[in-house]
């Protein structure tokens, strides 16, 4: 009896002491709060926004009109859309784009979908981190000339915009705190900030891959699943530079405080002088840093919609995804015919993950199937990102 009298109360006492009521409380400090329609699943962390240009629907819509307006160029011949076309995931399908004056840009046009999440915004410039900074380059740049706007013609360009009745209401709605946002001294700043808002608001997270990750097991084909495993394998090592929800290591959002420099990688595409050179002016991060170790280092691209954005690499010198994979499988590109003869496989600046691997044609098919599963088919038809001037035209012609 003694043991029973002792054990039972002790058992009850100890079990009661364990209690219950587990919980984990989470406070994201309003990082997931936004009034803007980002047009994306809730699991995607919101992008950073500059404090002086918070995104609004009104700025987004004004930026959308400006984006598709050829009057926003020196000679009225091109718009942003000329090089960033919606049906090509906001690229242009060319090896290298052509500016308003016919000058060929040295680098391949990048997709601007999900640009809001990129740590740096161009192929090789580590200093361009805000869309507001970057927008100025195609508008006003002279090397190369893209939109061809300069001091001599900027008033004329602005005047063309001011003449359009649509802009009267769009500017007023976007900048209600200003007395005259279209005609005042802040007009160009408003243009840049609105264009930035539109670009920032172009999001793309509706691919088969996203549906698969959301639990729709059948969203990926068997081939794409095999390709995904290859993509994430020790053998191919793709995921190191194309990781996470944006499929690039160059990512930032409201939840991320980057602790390492923005990534730029040399993939062994060139070795033109035998000492790891890249053909000018496409020398990558080296172009600005002057550091020989930066020669040929370019930002890893997001692979979202990559099947729509051919040709590939910083200079558009790789025609297909299969060729891209073959270059990686070889551990770089060996060019044996002029003008850029050289064995990129021997490039000393090559990223350590660019090592040769064996891969069969069937496996290449699988990897390509996986890359194709990253296509957001809704993006290329989404009216939210389409040309608003066409809507005006349709309305005008309606009976």
């Amino acid at each position, binding site marked *: 009896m*003694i*043991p029973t009298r*002792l*054990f039972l109360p*002790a*058992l009850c006492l*100890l*079990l009661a*002491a*364990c*209690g*219950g*009521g*587990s*919980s*984990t*409380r*989470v*406070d*994201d*400090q309003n*990082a*997931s709060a936004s009034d803007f329609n980002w047009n994306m699943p809730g699991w995607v*962390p919101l992008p950073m926004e500059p404090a002086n240009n918070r995104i609004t629907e009104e700025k987004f819509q004004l930026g959308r009109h400006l984006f598709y307006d050829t009057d926003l160029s020196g000679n009225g011949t091109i718009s942003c859309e000329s090089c960033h076309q919606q049906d090509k995931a906001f690229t242009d399908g060319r090896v290298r784009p052509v500016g308003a004056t016919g000058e060929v840009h040295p680098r391949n046009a990048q997709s601007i979908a999900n640009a809001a999440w990129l740590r740096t915004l161009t192929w090789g410039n580590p200093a361009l981190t805000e869309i507001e900074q970057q927008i100025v380059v195609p508008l006003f740049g002279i090397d190369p000339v893209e939109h061809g706007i300069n001091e001599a013609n900027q008033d004329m360009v602005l005047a063309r915009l001011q003449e359009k009745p649509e802009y009267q209401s769009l500017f007023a709605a976007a900048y209600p705190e200003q007395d005259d946002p279209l005609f005042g001294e802040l007009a160009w700043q408003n243009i840049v900030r609105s264009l930035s808002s539109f670009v920032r608001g172009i999001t793309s997270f509706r691919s088969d891959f996203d549906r698969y990750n959301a639990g729709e*097991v059948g969203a990926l084909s*068997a081939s794409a699943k095999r390709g*995904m*495993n290859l993509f*994430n*394998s*020790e053998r191919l090592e793709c*995921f190191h530079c194309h*990781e*996470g929800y944006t499929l690039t*290591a160059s*990512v*930032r959002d*409201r*939840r*991320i*405080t*980057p*602790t*390492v420099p923005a990534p730029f990688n040399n993939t062994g595409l060139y070795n033109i002088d035998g000492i790891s050179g890249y053909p000018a002016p496409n020398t990558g991060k080296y172009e600005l840093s002057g550091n020989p170790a930066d020669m040929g280092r370019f930002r890893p691209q997001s692979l979202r919609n990559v099947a729509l954005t051919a040709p590939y690499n910083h200079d558009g010198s790789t025609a297909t995804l299969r060729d891209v994979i073959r270059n990686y499988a070889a551990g770089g590109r060996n060019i044996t015919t002029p003008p850029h003869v050289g064995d990129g496989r021997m490039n000393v600046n090559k990223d350590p993950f660019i090592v040769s691997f064996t891969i069969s044609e069937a496996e290449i098919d699988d990897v390509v199937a996986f890359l194709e599963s990253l296509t957001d088919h809704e993006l290329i038809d989404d009216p939210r990102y389409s040309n608003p001037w066409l809507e005006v035209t349709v309305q005008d012609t309606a009976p």
Partner: protein
Amino acid sequence: MKRVFLFSTVALAGAAQAHYIPTTQTPTTVDADLVATWRSASLVEEYDYWQVPGTLMGGHAWPAREGVQVDEMNLSLNHRIDENLFGGVGLASHPEGDDSHGGVELEHAYVGWIQSDGPWVAEVGRLSAAFSPSLMAHAAQRLASEAPLANDVFFGRHFHDDGARLWWHETAGVSAGAEIWRGKAFPATDSGDGGAWDVFARYQWQGERWSFQAGGWFYSAAAEARADHRYGGGHQHVPVAPPGQTATAFSDIRYTGDTDIQGLHMELAYRVSRDWRLALEGEWMRAKLDGVVHDAIGRQADLDGTQDGGWIQPSVHWRQHTFAVRAEQLTTDNDMVGPAAPQLGDESGLANPEEHDPRRFTAIWRWQWRDNVALRAEAVRDESLPETENRWTLGVIWQQRLWPVGPVGHNH
């Protein structure tokens, strides 16, 4: 004769424990034990991972697997060098994960000094922690084949680390001491600002029918970018499943900060008669976490957590048979603050949307079949995850002093 058998069995169990000081009369000893267990079901699906909601896990806390598994193998050599010095080396094997993270490892390699006619003992080398009896015990010594849930969650099941211990050793029933650790054992890290230390004290009393032991301890660990090395840490990838099956990707979330854990343990036993003995033992732990949860791409969130864990185990011993029930529970109370807190909470396992209180109940029958061989059967109701899992186990335990064959020496 039966009493002699039972006492020798208990003593042998102690001798094979993680730490042992050989006597001058028996200067060299070699002990071995092996535990193999068949389980009727796995706790988690294949190509999935075990993460108790509301906790950060790591170390060697692998989930129970269906089928036969070697829960552990230990081989230890202890030697009394002279009157004051002794040393030991021990190899052990534990269950592996999906990616061969386990295997044989050197768990003990130490040299000790014992005071002549005094209570002080000092040891240095690779040691098992002495502060918690349950943490020191292997599957061969426990009544249950599986480690306590609290040990799995707070210490990654085992605790072996490079360090030093100074303690007042079993004098008038009292032991007390302090240990300092390099930090290789979960939940610490051995990086620059990592490491761990602890203090402990316990009292044991043996009467004619009653025996009693109780103690308390405090352990403090510092970690830098600590990974859950069971599945990730360093170079990790999506696990590859066979065609038609899906593998769950493991998020490599790290923890940098402090973990302070305090514990109380007790064991009370009453010998009713020559054949009957009753016992009650248990342990309670409280872990306080104060640090940052983060990942490789710069997401981070502050973590302030208080987590309690404990188990209680009444048992009835009749001749060579032991019947016991072990009841375990964890409670977790965490606050995560920071822009990435929601995502890191999900990916680290700290999120607990169902406010689940992990529990586990184990009914045990252990039969000391031969002098050195026991059989064990268990029924386990595992509620460590929100989905309850029931399983049966059948196991065999081999424990033997291989050298010399005879009475065992003094142990602790």
